[in-house]
């Protein structure tokens, strides 16, 4: 990049975080996007596992007994709105408005925390109603997928809390707009993963019952129970 250095005068207002890179993209930002791309593979595998075992649980509770679509629609909406407050936080950071940044971050944390609250309530209710992690194929794949998503959200909450505290404490240690931007990318990614989970596990798969007679899972079950004699 020596070429660019010698032929161009330095910008009049060099942003603090801009560095010369071969791609023209800040390394940290690039890293975050590479990570998010790889996280697609992670969640893709978990979602595929759920879909492979979907409708093969031979004991209840089945999704149609236990999935509450209206409540989860509300929590989905809450998470979606937290993406909006997050992007407003990023905009505030970019325009250098520290006070606004803190306000939007706190709002995002409240909305994200509300989403986690819904999930804690849901998991607890399922457990009390007899759907434990080991109950059936549905419960194992459901809790693994939504649990890992919840863990992502929780990590994001810690991240945003750190940024808010950094921004509130002193001007010297305050997060750069790139710091907020990268945290925002992570936060939005968690939101889009939930968009997929909500559609597949709740809107489409939330009414699944036991497998039909003649299904391979039922045949296998009958075979084994016939042998226990």
């Amino acid at each position: 990049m020596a070429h660019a250095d010698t032929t161009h005068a330095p910008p009049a207002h060099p942003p603090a975080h801009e560095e010369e890179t071969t791609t023209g993209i800040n390394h940290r930002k690039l890293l975050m996007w590479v990570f998010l791309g790889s996280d697609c593979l992670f969640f893709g595998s978990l979602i595929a596992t759920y879909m492979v075992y979907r409708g093969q649980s031979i004991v209840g509770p089945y999704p149609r007994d236990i999935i509450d679509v209206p409540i989860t629609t509300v929590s989905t909406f809450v998470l979606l709105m937290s993406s909006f407050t997050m992007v407003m936080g990023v905009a505030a950071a970019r325009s250098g408005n520290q006070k606004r940044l803190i306000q939007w971050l706190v709002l995002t944390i409240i909305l994200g925390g509300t989403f986690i609250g819904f999930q804690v309530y849901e998991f607890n209710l399922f457990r009390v109603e007899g759907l434990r992690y080991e109950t059936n194929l549905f419960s194992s794949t459901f809790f693994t997928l939504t649990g890992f998503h919840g863990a992502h959200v929780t990590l994001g909450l810690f991240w945003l809390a750190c940024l808010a505290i950094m921004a509130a404490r002193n001007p010297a240690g305050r997060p750069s707009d790139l710091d907020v931007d990268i945290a925002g990318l992570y936060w939005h990614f968690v939101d889009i993963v939930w968009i997929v989970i909500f559609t597949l596990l709740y809107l489409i798969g939330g009414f699944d019952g036991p497998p039909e007679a003649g299904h391979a899972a039922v045949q296998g079950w009958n075979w084994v129970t016939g042998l226990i004699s």
Partner: protein
Amino acid sequence: MSTNPGQEAVLAQQEHAAHDEHAAHEDAGISQFFFGRVPEGVHGGLKQYSLLAIFLGIITLVEFLIIVPEGLQGSGVVIAPLVILSVIKFFCVVAFFMHLKFENPLLWQIFVAGLVLGLIVALSLVLLFGVFRPTPRAFSEPRIEPFEHHVEDAHAVIERPLPDELPPPANPADLAPAAPAGGAAAGASPGQTLFVGTAACASCHTIQGVAQGVLGPPLDGIASVAGNRISGYSAEEYIRESILEPDAYTAGSADGLSQDYQEGLMSATMAGIVLSDEDVEALVEFLLQLR
């Protein structure tokens, strides 16, 4: 390292954007923000983002409304609209909230590469384990593992001391529709279907031609002998009590059977199985036919 023209253009564009960021920020109109070509580094403001948030909220509401009619719940026709709507939401968030529309195209390529790889992994798994189920060829039959050890495992489980806390029983409403899945022969009575299916009687009791369990007394001809087990009980009363209160009386060699059976075993193994009143009556009716 040589500088290619594409990179130069990107750099020039970035510097341009850095100079004009504030002006462009103010100037990006709504239609330009969502549909037009905007220079790199341009971002939206409250107006653009709230419009998008409202749009996404409406899509979520529409998705919910699609599955409100009970006839549509879980049916195949809703899958396509729901998938299309969530794909729209997905890419709106990526393009505008994650401002990928306004970024270096390389970031799109990186993310889409990960996304496509993830989709391929998901599709491969579903196809491999969920769709294609090959039938083993004849030559492999001698090598298919015998399942005797499953029987041993099952006996070990049955004889194991019970945990203090048993899992809550399944919802009885769900057991009824699952009953036809019990693998009973076509034309079997509801009681027989339950016997080999969800009531799991067949795991422990023998009825010639129906089940070969050994842990409990055989039930061939039970209707003929049930009336003699407890004085004052008819065959029907005895059978019903034996299902509902298995511990009340445990049949054994005193009843002319070949052995004594373990007391309390049936109530323990049935602890997780819930039978409705109709289920019990169907079982009684079926067993009363075994003369």
